[in-house]
């Protein structure tokens, strides 16, 4: 996929739009946006978006491939679904945001240090391993994701909460070893693997 933005006057081609339609979850809805902006106004973390959804849609139509895929914006999505229920054109905006984030990751051009990006990856790895989430490890990894020293800080910062959770039995040290898991790990993992292969076959060529 060539970088379209470098061509000075080759804008507003649908190449990137078509790429999004083909490869991004619910991407074929992007063209239906009429730029009313109700999604952008409805987002709880809206002010933290460099480019709110409706603007991303316009950028996609304008062929701004890298600016879109490298943006941190869609990683700001809290999945509150306000945008979806309010969109007058029934765009599944939440899913498109997730889809764009995933597609950027798949292409390896996502903003690497974006914390939600990191947490989301941890979460997936965590559940993909055992089929169920191991909250303790999830937490531990989360705190240490930006390196050990910083991790200690965060961990200490969160210690109070961790303690509280432990005391109330809502976090269990048992999770350190073993912990929750599906019984049919093999089948589970095979299923995930298969799904990933099928998807890759669809997208990567």
């Amino acid at each position, binding site marked *: 996929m060539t970088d379209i933005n470098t061509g000075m006057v080759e804008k507003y081609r649908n190449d990137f*739009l078509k790429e999004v339609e083909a490869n991004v979850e619910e991407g074929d809805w992007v063209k239906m946006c009429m730029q009313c902006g109700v999604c952008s106004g409805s987002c709880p973390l809206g002010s933290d978006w460099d480019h709110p959804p409706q603007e991303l849609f316009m950028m996609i139509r*304008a062929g701004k491939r890298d600016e879109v895929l490298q943006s941190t914006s869609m990683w700001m999505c809290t999945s509150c679904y306000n945008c979806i229920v309010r969109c007058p054109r029934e765009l599944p905006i939440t899913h498109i945001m997730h889809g764009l984030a995933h597609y950027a990751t798949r292409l390896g051009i996502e903003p690497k240090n974006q914390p939600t990006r990191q947490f989301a990856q941890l979460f997936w790895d965590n559940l993909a391993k055992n089929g169920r989430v191991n909250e303790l490890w999830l937490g531990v990894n989360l705190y240490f994701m930006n390196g050990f020293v910083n991790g200690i800080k965060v961990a200490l910062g969160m210690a109070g909460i961790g303690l509280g959770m432990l005391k109330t039995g809502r976090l269990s040290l048992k999770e350190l070893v073993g912990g929750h898991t599906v019984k049919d790990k093999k089948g589970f993992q095979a299923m995930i693997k298969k799904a990933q292969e099928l998807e890759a076959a669809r997208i990567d060529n």
Partner: protein
Amino acid sequence: MADEMKIGAYICNGCGIGDRLDSGQLEMTATRDGKAAVCQQSDFLCSEAGVKMIQDDIDNEGVNHVVIAACSRRAKIEAFSFENVTLSRANLREGVIWVRPDEDDQRETTQEMADDYIRMACAESKYMKVPAASGQQEVNKNILIAGGGVSGMTAAIEASKAGYPCTIVEKTAALGGATAQLYKKIPTKAPYADPQDNGIAEMVATIEADSNITVCLNSTLTKTAGAPGRFEADISTESGSTETKSFGAIVQASGFTPYDANNLTEFSYSKSQDVITQAELEALAIAADGGAIKRPSDGKEVTNVMFIQCAGQRSKKEGHLEHCSGYCCSASIKQAMYFKDQNPDIDTTVLYSDLRTPGAGGENFYRSGQKKGIIFTKGIASEVVHSKNPIVKFKDLILDEEVEDEVDLVVLATGMVANAGEPTREQITIAENEAKEAGNEYTVSVESILNLDYRQGKDMPHMDNGFADSHFICFPYETQRTGMYAAGPTRRPMDIGQSMDDAMGAAMKAIAAAENAGLGKAAHPRVADLSFPTARLEGCTQCKRCTVECPFGAIDEDEKGFPQFNESRCRRCGTCMGACPVRVISFDNYSIDTVGQQLKAVDIPEEFDEKPRILVLACENDAYPALDMAAQNKMDYSAFTRVIPVRCLGSVSLSWITDSMNSGYDGIILMGCPSGDDYQCHFVKGSGTAQERMSKVADTLETLSLEPERVQTYEISITESDKVVKIINDMADTIEQIGMSPFKF
């Protein structure tokens, strides 16, 4: 109608009239002062019994002039409508008891008010005749349709379906007009998702199969004379032969001219072959006929195209169109679909500032366009650079950045210019004067469509943006030329779907005009009025004011300069009557006397009685209803007021003003409709004209050495009840200040 006049006066005592007024006194006034031969009272005059009582007198007593002294002329219209008699209404309810407090010390003045209204009604009655059609009229069901485009064809097909023979006069060699030049049209049926066939072929077939429709191709109207019911049209062919046919009414469906894109130098239209108009794209699409559309310059198959909306429209810039042509957004969506339907990989971008696809169909079509992958970008194009491929420079308003985009083809959504024909003589004069001031020369650049043989000009007056539109919202078909109705884009910019609807409406109005002209009945707004203006020519000074001031071009002049009234062009507003300095113009049921004698009939007390008289001449369409509604809401105004409704302020004769001044009225108020650009006068110019005339009254007052405050003219809208009351009471105060008129005898 009976030979000798017999006035029957009928006084109602209902609705509190009887409690508030001395009906015996009223009866005496009617018989003694009003010379009513018959006078009866009723406690419930509008009841079946009451109405029967009146009808009996008409049938058995020979009463032929009926005076109803009850409620406003706007109330109980159905009950008080009698055949073959004149009808006058003394408004004792809304005009007297409802606007006066029920207090003993007011009884005297209130009674005087009522007595005067009886006198006035009787006076009016005395001078009214039962209007009869002139005999000038004839029934002619033939409809002349100028223009053979989709609007004209629709008008013809639909009028014919109703049994009215039509003649289409088409300038070109074929029917179909602009629509025939379209590859496809904007959909007019659910689900409004795809372009539709333009439908011309079927329409042509229908017309050819219809013996009721005559088509004259390569023809123009070289002269249109006459009036509704008896139009005489010269239909001339290119070859020069002329045939004269007569018609009952006319539909003008002369369509539009595409805006000249050569004015758009910023978009390199004249420089680049690959910058084209929507009309030119239609030609390319027809050539491609479902295949790949090739661009003009090098025949390359178009892979990306940009549509620039509002090109030369919605702008006050010199040479641009100020209006929005309404159809171009949908047209660009349709044209982008030409590309997308043929090959979804072609990039189509529509550059718009407001996407205008109203209604159910419009929004569906917009969504359908998006589904097909048309890209809509809110932006303003500043320039199209001519190079191998045109480069569009625009500001993307959403992404807030200046963009340059190189495309294969640029389509300019230029707008519609009306084919409304020549402006009127009046409009031309105004334009010439404006030009003179600007130091230029004004020449009429357009051809006439109708070539009317009217002294007022060759075509219908132009309205906003040069279209032959109606000014009225409630009456979209009301032109200033009776029996002629504009349809389609010559009236207002519109797409095919709207044009077809519009043409049906215009056909309906044309049919009505033809039918009513045949019966000698007036057209809107005094529908079915049989009266018409006549003049005592022996008194006429050929001053031409009547012909000049008639808002509807109803009056011609003969070679000697005497007015020739065309009854069926006339709307019965009476502006000619008001214009006539020698008072020779009148209607059977509305004349210098029917009003003049009313104001004379009012009893003017001696100066020292301290009972001034205020005359109110109120337009029957807005001011009079406003007064009625003030009464309905029990607002009081001065007991010295005497109100006379007039058809239009334009019908007010200066003689009424001078007469009333001479006979001792202390104040005169004229109430007409708002005039000017957004005029509300149902006779277009009536109230404006009246105000011009009144501006000259000041001098007359001078000569009588009277204060100018004594005569005042106001613009009143129907809702302004508070205002009318205030105006009257202010006049009463003014009179207290400046004192009574010295002209009381």
